[in-house]
């Protein structure tokens, strides 16, 4: 079924998607729509379920109920998972990792920890990779992504996405300065520690788990169909082309998606040695034609004890090969699909070409665009070795070394019949990272005292080399990018290569003192030296301190039987960040600029391209946090609360500098300040905890408030005062080039990413019968001037103030059911899609929404008219599983489980566009704007199977 609603103001609709079993193999879907409105000024349309769709749903359900499944996880249940909800150190073990159809390890984390935002909208993994945020954005330049550590190896989100979820033992989310301090500057934006499964015990195990599922889009934009299109053009006396067809181009791009995952693991060994090996395959064909993902991964871990158990050696190797067939330009594709003339054929025309309205210069035939290629092939190789050498009772030494190699090859192809007129691109980036550390650990207990100390030295080196080539003027489309010799033109700049290296040297001292098992104090001091700063500024000292007090163990609580746990925590620390910058910024370097005619020859010249800053230094963030963990009635209810506050200083940013005297208008410098504070809460409630029945309800919530305090300061004795206001994101498409189309801004004194817009009083009818947006003269100067500083006001923020994640799981004997929800509240979304598609100015070159002719808006001025509340609650998945009881299994089978999942069954939102799950977290040019690029929302239905021998 698909549902569209173009709405305004406060109309809310609830879209409930239920599935009910009737008899053996029949499933019926029920859709409930409720409209509630404070005023009647809303536009909304609803399409009833078409027959075709019902058939499709029924068919899918039949397949689903007769044999397939979902559920990705292995089914080991851990008992204490509810103890860690929402606190600062959140451990997400297998039980808490998301279930349902998983095409990426990151999805396992969605909604699982307060303060962790994993954006999973659309199918674009790279978009998802870029928008994982722990406690929001703390730096303007970058380095906002949390550090990922996989079995001790410093890694990143992209490497994590290559690991099969079932190979992961647990995720540990570290957020506070004192917890991230051991990881130094790279952990400034939080750390996700990933522990993968290793072999255990001496017994041989083999397991298989896998799932197969279908994906189907359930919503699209309600554009004029061919008849309405022609009728409207006639009525408006506009020239149009009637191609005689009735094509729904949004549908034409789609297909039924298919995903399958398979994973097989072996483990075994003796009491001195263990091994575990696994192979995994993940494949997904998304609901958009030609958009697919493949991942093949292999992993091996070996552990050996030697010399009378004094030395322990752990060795691990992980390799993966990913192939991502991405959409080259989502905005152009979906914009074209929505606005293409619906009378054009659903395929090539009689002469083999692609019909397209030549007057609609900003779009192409979507079916021609879908042939564009943007493929990534990513090879990951990761290896590490850890030696643990025990010296006597209190001392041990560990040495750790790792090497990782990532090769990422991108190949693109733009066929001759679209905008690029035949272009092929190939590029390759290779990066190598070495890490070595050696640590001495000492622990000692005497009486009620426990003391642990650690001294570590660590060195990391990171080298990236890249190569790229582009040719234009292809002679043949069939060779795509497989033979660049097919291109006739190689312009200057079309080939290039690069080399970059940086290094980090660190020393860490850590002391951990515990008294009577009640009071704990941890002190960390880490010194980081980075090659990316100039000689005088390379080193930064980042200390932290944290303490906990287990109140429950105090005698005055002895009588409080209902209180099963009470722990107070507090911490403070300073961390450094350089994640957003690259090597060589402090050096005065010359780059090849371009070709000029020089004494009869086209010659490459060398010149600077940035203002170098030899005074560049560490961005620092001071933070403190205070929290408590509580458990009541034998941990029937557990509650974790935490408040944090951080202040980023010497913020690395490309500041505006005066031209003249500077050559370039931007300079990377340390000037500004930003603050983040927030409150996080986790509740776990287990009302039923019996042998045959279990109910767990987990909920985490976080409130976050960000403020850009200052973007000015002294540099080299000169006061720089960067503009208080600059645009982050603006609209694109026909008639939106430049001018006053900026929507999201960074404004000093405001949260990062606020909507700064003219205020629309409503629609007014003009002399020619069309309507336009009436804009309020906010600055009272008697005329409408909507440039910055004119008739504009701050109309809300793009980042949610509140986020919520919740999981409800219920087990009855061997059946279990689990529901995961995610929500975000308190933010707004600019509906640029409706602004564009309700605008009749471009019609019939650009098709419009079915409501557009009625409103006849002949205006595309960006005002707050299309600024909507972005609140939503999304049901991520619902999974039903059955674990076969041991007595039903043969002797060799130790466990067997079947499960059935639906991902994305429903979204509750007041937002009128396709989906409220757009980029609301990452500060970039798409932030907060739904601008013709939303991937069609889709559900997946999957069946999972898991067996262990």
């Amino acid at each position, binding site marked *: 079924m698909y549902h569209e609603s173009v709405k305004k103001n406060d109309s809310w609709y609830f879209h409930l998607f239920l599935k009910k079993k009737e008899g053996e193999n029949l499933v019926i879907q029920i859709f409930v729509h409720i409209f509630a409105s404070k005023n009647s000024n809303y536009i909304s349309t609803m399409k009833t379920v078409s027959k075709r769709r019902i058939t499709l749903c029924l068919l899918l359900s039949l397949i689903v109920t007769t044999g397939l499944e979902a559920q990705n996880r292995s089914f080991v249940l851990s008992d204490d998972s509810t103890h860690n909800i929402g606190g600062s150190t959140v451990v997400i073990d297998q039980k808490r990792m998301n279930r349902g159809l998983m095409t990426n390890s990151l999805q396992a984390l969605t909604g699982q920890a307060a303060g962790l935002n994993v954006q999973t909208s659309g199918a674009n993994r790279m978009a998802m990779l870029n928008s994982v945020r722990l406690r929001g954005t703390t730096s303007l330049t970058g380095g906002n992504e949390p550090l990922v550590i996989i079995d001790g190896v410093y890694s990143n989100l992209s490497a994590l996405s290559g690991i099969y979820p079932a190979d992961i033992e647990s995720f540990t989310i570290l957020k506070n300065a004192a917890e991230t301090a051991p990881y130094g500057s790279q952990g400034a934006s939080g750390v996700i520690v990933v522990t993968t499964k290793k072999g255990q015990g001496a017994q041989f195990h083999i397991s298989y788990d896998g799932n197969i599922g279908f994906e189907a889009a359930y919503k699209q934009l309600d554009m004029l169909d061919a008849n309405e299109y022609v009728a409207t053009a006639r009525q408006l006396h506009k020239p149009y082309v009637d191609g005689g067809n009735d094509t729904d181009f949004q549908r034409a791009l789609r297909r039924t998606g298919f995903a399958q995952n398979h994973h097989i693991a072996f483990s075994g060994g003796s009491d001195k040695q263990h091994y575990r090996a696994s192979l995994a395959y993940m494949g997904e064909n998304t609901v958009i034609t030609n958009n697919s993902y493949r991942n093949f991964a292999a992993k091996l871990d070996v552990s050996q004890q030697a010399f009378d158990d004094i030395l322990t050696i752990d060795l691990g190797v992980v390799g993966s090969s990913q192939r991502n067939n991405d959409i080259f330009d989502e905005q152009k594709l979906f914009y074209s699909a929505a606005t293409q003339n619906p009378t054009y054929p659903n395929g090539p025309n009689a002469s083999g070409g692609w019909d397209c309205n*030549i007057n609609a210069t900003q779009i192409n035939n979507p079916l021609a665009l879908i042939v564009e290629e943007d493929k990534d092939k990513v090879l990951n190789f990761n290896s590490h070795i850890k030696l643990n050498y025990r010296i006597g009772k209190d001392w041990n030494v560990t040495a750790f070394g790792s090497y990782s190699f990532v090769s990422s090859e991108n190949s693109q192809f733009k066929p001759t019949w679209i905008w690029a007129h035949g272009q092929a691109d190939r590029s390759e980036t290779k990066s190598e990272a070495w890490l070595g550390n050696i640590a001495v650990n000492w622990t000692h207990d005497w009486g009620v005292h426990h003391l642990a100390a650690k*001294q570590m030295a660590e*060195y990391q080196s990171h080298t990236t080399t890249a190569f790229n080539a582009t040719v234009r003027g292809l002679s043949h489309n069939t060779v795509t990018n497989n033979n660049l010799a097919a291109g006739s033109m190689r312009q200057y700049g079309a080939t290039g290569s690069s080399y970059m290296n940086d290094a980090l040297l660190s020393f860490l001292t850590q002391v951990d003192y515990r008294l009577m098992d009640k009071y704990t104090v941890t002190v960390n001091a880490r010194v980081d*030296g980075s090659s990316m700063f100039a000689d005088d500024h390379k080193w930064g000292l980042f200390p932290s301190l944290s303490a906990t007090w287990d109140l429950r163990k105090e005698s005055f609580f002895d009588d409080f039987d209902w209180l099963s746990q009470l722990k107070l925590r507090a911490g403070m620390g300073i961390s450094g960040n350089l994640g957003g910058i690259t090597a060589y910024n402090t050096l005065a370097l010359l780059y090849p600029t371009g070709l000029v005619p020089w004494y009869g020859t086209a*010659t490459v010249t060398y010149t600077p391209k940035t203002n170098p800053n030899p005074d560049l230094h560490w961005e620092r963030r001071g933070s403190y946090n205070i929290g408590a963990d509580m458990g009541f009635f034998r941990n029937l209810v557990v509650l974790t609360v935490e408040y944090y506050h951080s202040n980023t200083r010497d913020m690395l940013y490309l500041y505006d500098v005066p031209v003249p005297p500077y050559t370039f208008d931007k300079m990377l410098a340390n000037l500004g300040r930003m603050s983040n504070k927030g409150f996080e809460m986790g509740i776990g409630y287990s009302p039923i905890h019996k042998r045959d029945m279990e109910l767990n309800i987990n909920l985490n919530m976080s409130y976050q408030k960000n403020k850009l305090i200052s973007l000015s300061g002294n540099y080299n004795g000169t006061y720089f005062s960067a*503009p208080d206001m600059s645009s982050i994101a603006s609209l694109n498409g026909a008639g939106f080039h430049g001018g006053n189309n900026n929507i999201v801004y960074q404004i000093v004194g405001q949260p990062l990413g606020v909507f700064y817009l003219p205020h629309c009083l409503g629609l007014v009818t003009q002399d020619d019968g069309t309507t336009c947006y009436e804009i309020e003269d906010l600055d009272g100067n008697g005329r409408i001037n909507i440039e910055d500083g004119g008739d504009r006001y701050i109309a809300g923020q793009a980042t949610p103030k509140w986020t919520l994640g919740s999981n409800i799981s219920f087990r009855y004997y061997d059946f279990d059911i689990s529901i995961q929800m995610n929500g975000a509240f308190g933010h707004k979304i600019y509906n640029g899609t409706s602004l564009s598609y309700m605008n009749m100015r471009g019609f019939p070159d650009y098709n419009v929404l079915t409501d557009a002719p009625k409103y006849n808006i002949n205006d595309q001025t960006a005002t707050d008219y299309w600024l909507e509340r972005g609140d939503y609650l999304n049901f991520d998945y619902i999974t039903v599983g059955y674990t076969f009881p041991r007595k039903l299994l043969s002797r060799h089978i130790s466990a067997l489980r079947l499960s059935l999942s639906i991902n994305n069954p429903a979204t509750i939102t007041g937002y009128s566009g396709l989906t409220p799950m757009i980029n609301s977290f990452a500060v970039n040019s798409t932030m907060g704007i739904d601008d013709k690029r939303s991937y069609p929302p889709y559900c997946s239905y999957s069946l999972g199977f898991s067996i262990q021998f």
Partner: protein
Amino acid sequence: MIVVRPYILILGTAMAGMALTSCLDEYPKGEVEEAEAYTSVAYIERDLVGDLYNYIGGDSPSHGLQGTIRGVYDWNSVTTDEQMMPVRGADWDDGGFWNRLYNHRWTSSDGELSSTWKYLYEVISRCNRSLYFIDRYRYRLVLTNEQYEAFTAEVRGLRAMFYFYTMDMFGNIPLVTDYNTPVSDIRQSPRSEVFRFIFNELQEVAPYLKGERSNELGNYYGRFTRPVAYFLLAKLALNAEVYSDNDWTDGIRPDGKSIYFSVDEKQLNAWETVVYYCQEIYDLGYRLEEYYGTNFAIHNEVSKENIFVIPMDNNLYSNRFNYIFRSLHAAHGGAIGWGTENGTCATVSTMNAYGITEDNPSKRDPGEIDSRYYINFHSDTVLVKGQKVNDGYGNVLVYHPLEVAENLTGSPFERNGGARMAKYETDFTASEDGTLQNNDIVLFRYADVLLMQAEAKVRNGGSGQEEMDFVRSRVHEKIREATLDNLLTERLLELMWEGWRRNDLIRFGKFTELYDHRVNAVVDNTGYTTVFPITGDVLSLNPNMVQNPGY
């Protein structure tokens, strides 16, 4: 078992770490460090002089004197009665940008104006940097005096040219000549001072510049040679009344007859100075081409009329030419093989000047139409390689030169209203939708020199008839009397699409008039709009900066 003392371990760890600190030095491999870059005279000349030619044209908005959009060219052309960018349905609203240009409603918060300022000063700063390094290496690498004079003359000449464009647009601007000037020392100089500085610089460096043609392929192709300097000197002197006026909102202008320059050891007034430098250019061998279109042909490097060009080559240089691309109807471009944007067109008053007073070609008197109409514009029924063009709706594409308005949305002429830019010979081999053409972009040419000479003579009380006759007879047009009004019209006819119109209108005092159909234009009784505002970001980043009057 090996016994290891714990303190040795701690010490060892620390020492191993210390030993690695040298690993924190940076050794870039893909770039060249400044300190190691200028190791030979040839490198100095190439990277400190030659490099500057990367910035005359450009390939990104606001970067480049001509060819790119929203930069110097647009602020000097789309702001005038020569050409405009009507809103065409969904296209070209662009947040009201083009409308603000047409109606002179720009403000100090226009980002495009700020980008233009930054571009101009980026190049000026690069020139200052070049001069600084040439001085630094002068004795280290033992440059001969001749080399030193030649290198610095070329850089100073280029810098003067960029100061000319900056002063012309922004009036009172900071004169920065030292690469290491601190922000606190940067403040504006009065326009007349900047004007005198530019004029003196050009006069000083001219003798050290090569007297070679810059538009011809060869050693000096695209470079700042002596005729280029002479052209600028003539242009500066022609506008001396404007540029010497520091208070341009009081309605009083100095008289060119009493503005004196010392030229060739003589004191010449502004108009005599113009004539002098125009004569110098003639003496260097510049002449009118027999055929007007030769100057804009695909291989216009052979023109004996062009003085300074932006070199264009489909396969070599990255300079773009966006103006035909953004002007032609999409179906028109499609027939050529380009995806064009259907935007800019000539105004109605321009069409009238060319003798087009009837939209229907059959009602026109061919004798009234200036012959340059057929070269400068695509108008009426469009032909590509002799074939008519389908407009995308099944009709023959016909441009209607007189059906132009600020906003054509909803009009039957939404897509085909207005005559489009032709001028440059269509290069069917051009790539990137025609923006990478092989025709060099003409910045300065000799026809302008003749018209400047004519105007200066008239303004000095003499006759410019001879020069004007040359220009008109070349295009087989009837002789017109060389009055100031006729000269202004002649400049429009001859120099259409060449980026001079704002400069001309200001000199003739007509820039603030409600010409063409500018009914919504800003009311400017003082002339403050003849100079653009200093933009807000420039003002806020340097407290010394003062806004131009009226803004």
